[in-house]
């Protein structure tokens, strides 16, 4: 049945996010906060995360555009980005944020550039996978009624 197929697909996608290290336990904490009265809570939080990320990345790139300068400011912004990542369970993104911060503390501008690239890559990958999963999840939700998550 289409329903079972969808369920399997959603479960597979969700499991991959965890197995591949994109998400950690904090994401499950968010899933647990979803209920019939708040069925899109996870999606809403994740969307806030995306708009935050865009802003942080933009600000960081602006500062870095003119070459090595205010490492403290860069570190502060990345600290905030890392906080948001942590709050949604974005494990790999969080790791790359830490790497960037290490480079800031060492005053290593080239390192920062590389690390920022990694942050953006991991963020894009997470967004792609997560959006796909949540899309399928929402379709399933409409068919099945309330579920917090799909287990395989």
């Amino acid at each position, binding site marked *: 049945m289409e329903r079972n197929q969808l369920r399997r697909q959603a479960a597979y996608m969700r499991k991959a996010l965890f197995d591949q290290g994109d998400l950690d336990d904090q994401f499950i904490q968010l899933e647990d*906060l979803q209920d019939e009265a708040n069925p899109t809570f996870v999606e809403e939080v994740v969307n806030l995360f995306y708009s935050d990320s865009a802003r942080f990345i933009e600000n960081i790139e602006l500062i870095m555009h003119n070459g090595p300068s205010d490492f403290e400011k860069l570190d502060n912004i990345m600290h905030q980005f*890392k906080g948001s990542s942590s709050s949604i369970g974005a494990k790999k993104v969080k790791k790359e944020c830490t790497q960037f911060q290490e480079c800031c503390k060492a005053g290593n501008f080239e390192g920062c550039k590389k690390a920022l690239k990694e942050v953006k890559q991991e963020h894009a990958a997470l967004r792609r996978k997560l959006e796909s999963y949540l899309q399928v999840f929402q379709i399933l939700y409409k068919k099945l009624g309330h579920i917090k998550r799909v287990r395989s």
Partner: protein
Amino acid sequence: MAMGDLGGDCSSIDAQELHVLAVDDSVVDRKVIERLLKISCCKVTAVESGRRALQYLGLDGERSSVEFDGLKVNLIMTDYSMPGMTGFELLKRIKGSSKLREIPVVIMSSENILTRIDRCLEEGAEEFLVKPVKLSDVKRLTDFILRGDDNSQKKGSRKRKTRDGSCSPTPPSVTSSPSTLQLPSKSISPRPLSKHPKMQITD
């Protein structure tokens, strides 16, 4: 966990709902903490800065010191690292105010730094939570606050449970010393709450 409305549990609480003021510059974290608190049957006011928090509490120096902007606040949960006024500075302002010092203040931080934790507790924070904050953290906290309110004897003194579980008012000079804190093992050790076994959640 029941699949129905998570807020359904609120009907079983006879006592008045706690009103919590949440302070965090992160919009993601405000959304999450707000949800955690609502599930724990609290009324929530979420603001983005220490300055806004002080304004809400009627302590920004521009208003009469008697009026509150809104409902009485039973608990303040604030992020530590915020631009402008840090959570620590906010804590100091609150504890330095005769009007507000009785309100328990909880600090939340993504950084598990012992000196930071100690400093906050010494300044009068009720608890220091390492982020990301979980539902179990909030539930434990609100349970504690509710019990404290029930047992409150004398206004104007810090409510502290003694080790035998009874709650007696003690003069501020005694309670300000860290050794008399009643949640020492939970507040000071790193990430204590994550050591609890996770519940198996089934759909």
